[in-house]
């Protein structure tokens, strides 16, 4: 195993309080990307 993730990073990744806010942020961000709509790509609908 090679340490590729620093102790500080790991702390942030696993801290429930920080991660709670991350959870809210990620949920909203993903919702915006995914529910943000979709459509065609062909010239006729542009």
């Amino acid at each position: 195993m090679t340490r590729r993730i620093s102790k500080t990073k790991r702390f942030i990744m696993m801290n429930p309080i920080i991660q709670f806010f991350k959870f809210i942020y990620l949920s909203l961000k993903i919702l915006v990307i995914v529910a943000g709509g979709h459509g065609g790509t062909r010239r006729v609908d542009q």
Partner: protein
Amino acid sequence: MSRIVVLGAGISGHVAATHLRRKLSKKHTVTVVSPNSNYQWVPSNIWVGTGRMQPKDIIFPLAPLYKKKGIEYKQAKVVTFHPEGDTEIEKPYILAEYVAGETVGAMEKVTYDYLINATGPKLAFDMTEGLKPATNKAYSVCTYTHATEAWHALDQLIQEMKQGKKKKILIGTGHAKSTCQGAAFEYILNVEQELNRHGVRDMAELTWIANEPQLGDFGMDGMLLSYGSNIMKSSELVEMVFEDRGIKWIIGAGVNKIEDGIAHYETLDGEYHTETYDFTMLIPAFSGHGFKAYDKNNKDITDKLFKGFMIVDADYTPKPYEEWTVQDWPETYQNPSYANIFAPGIAFAPPHAISKPRVSKNGTPISPAPPRTGMPSGITAKLVADNIIDTINNKKPSLRHKGSMGNMGAACIASSGYGITKGSGISITTFPIVPDFNKYPDTYGRRLGKTFGEIGLAGHWLKLALHHAFLYKAKMRPFWWLIPE
């Protein structure tokens, strides 16, 4: 009065059937033909495969729900397609064979006005010699039955490791053209976490084997993503995670034969190797079901409907990778020969791969097939349902709803370990799924910001939240339709 027949009750078939039923008046009939009596939330199979969930946590029976909601259900499998009817029946129909109950084996001609083929893939284990779930120490997590078998074998292995025996675990893709690398990726990380939890991590050698030319290709040609304040390639992100967790990797590998505890594979440089293991989980190739289609005179017209998977409004003209465009990808999932037949989800034939095709020095194609994950499967099913609803309600053909994978985002919340405080997840979003090199020429065809990666406990919570939300939605509980696909 129209009858819409939906083939398959997986993510896309169920989404289509439930939306049709909610939005169409009761004078129209929605019929689902599917062989499995249960709905399964497939993404959570990886947790069944690590013993953290039971099949009952991810499935529910379809018949009572469909009865309550007024959806006709036939526990049967489609055998042949007859889009023009035949000499006896003028209406188009599919021939279905019942697979359970008193009518098992009986055949029925199920007529339709609109047909949604949402039969997903055939799990083509037979395309790799010796690859069969629960034989040769090889397992799968593609269904809840497979995942249960995988967990029993893994659990046994863990017990042996506890007695001091070293073991080798191999996880990845089981064919040179497999897709669904994401599921195998999730599984290897979950297995690693479980080995840690049981205190046997140092007793296991964990190896990733995949047909990807680079780590993090995921059948999507990899991606450039924002990660915190950095911009990195998905290959770098996955490499960081694998190194951090002590997972070795073999890439550009087309597994071609499985023997008891031995995987044979060929690499892109044309060499043949073997890898031994005590437990392996390999995703098989996905293929079409091999359905046949006939016209009204019983003449074989399979090539009008199928090209492996079902033919839809894609541009199937063969062309080199350099000439692929997002415009090749379908938008309405309508069959060009029969306007009342649609194929959302995995059931449609993609125009080509997304990852650059690669061949080994011996001429063997070794590169991922294009994935169609849960989210696009749901979105494409809903838009197909919406177009049918508009067509019925407005009494004129409508294809207003469109959704190309070249203009659609997807979130892949990859679980990398289960546990409310010890779990973690790698959340990756991609926009668009099929890279658009004209729109985003400097960022590998994807929009940065909308294509990002995050690692941490929040990812696990998100994956768990999605598990509950999507099962709630699938069970059609109050206001289920407010939850997006």
